[in-house]
């Protein structure tokens, strides 16, 4: 089960506390893995947060999860650095670039390793099962162990 929360002009900490309180979790103790991914200490719920400009997105789940949001953009100069040749062929527009970027980021955040995993290693032409959403002029990607159910608040 997944729930996606999208809010403007709020801090990650505030949104997380608000949502966890709503989920009935009162004692919020955050721990971090070796790469800095945050978890609830007893892992009764998994969460992941991303922000872009003034937009904050939070996903909570019963399983490991990663999320990323980015305003639609194009950075042609970094495409060869972060994309496989298969991915490069698919990028024609800023929308293509942004969708590819949020997918990569959500995947490496799901793994709990982040960019250190190697952005080219997160080949979005081979990894299946992303949830991709457009919100205004942003794209949001979610990757997790159980993508069967998504609820949005």
């Amino acid at each position: 089960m997944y729930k996606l929360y999208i809010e403007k002009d709020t801090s990650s900490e505030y949104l997380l506390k608000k949502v966890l309180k709503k989920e009935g979790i009162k004692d919020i103790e955050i721990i971090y893995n070796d790469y800095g991914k945050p978890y609830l200490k007893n892992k009764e719920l998994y969460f992941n947060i991303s922000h872009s400009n003034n937009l904050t997105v939070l996903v909570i789940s019963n399983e490991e999860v990663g999320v990323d949001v980015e305003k639609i953009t194009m950075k042609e100069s970094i495409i060869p650095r972060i994309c496989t040749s298969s991915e490069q062929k698919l990028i024609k527009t800023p929308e293509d670039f942004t969708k590819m970027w949020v997918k990569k980021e959500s995947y490496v955040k799901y793994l709990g390793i982040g960019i250190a995993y190697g952005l080219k290693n997160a080949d979005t032409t081979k990894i299946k099962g992303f949830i991709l959403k457009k919100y205004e002029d942003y794209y949001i990607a979610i990757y997790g162990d159980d993508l069967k159910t998504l609820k949005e608040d």
Partner: protein
Amino acid sequence: MKEETISLIASILEIPKEKITEKTNLINDLELESLDLVDLVAAFEEKYNIEILDKDIKSLQTVGDIINYIEKKNV
């Protein structure tokens, strides 16, 4: 090296270089997001003809960290 690095960061991020020192934190002070950080790294790779490994990016927390990293690459 120090002045050159600061000037490049200021140019890419479109902020006055007077606002940047070696102690400036890329995320906390300049509010860089992952994509900005990769953009910055790619610019340094091109300028100095070096490779900055993805696994090292997280360790580049301050402008001083970038300067030290590039110097260690014997530029």
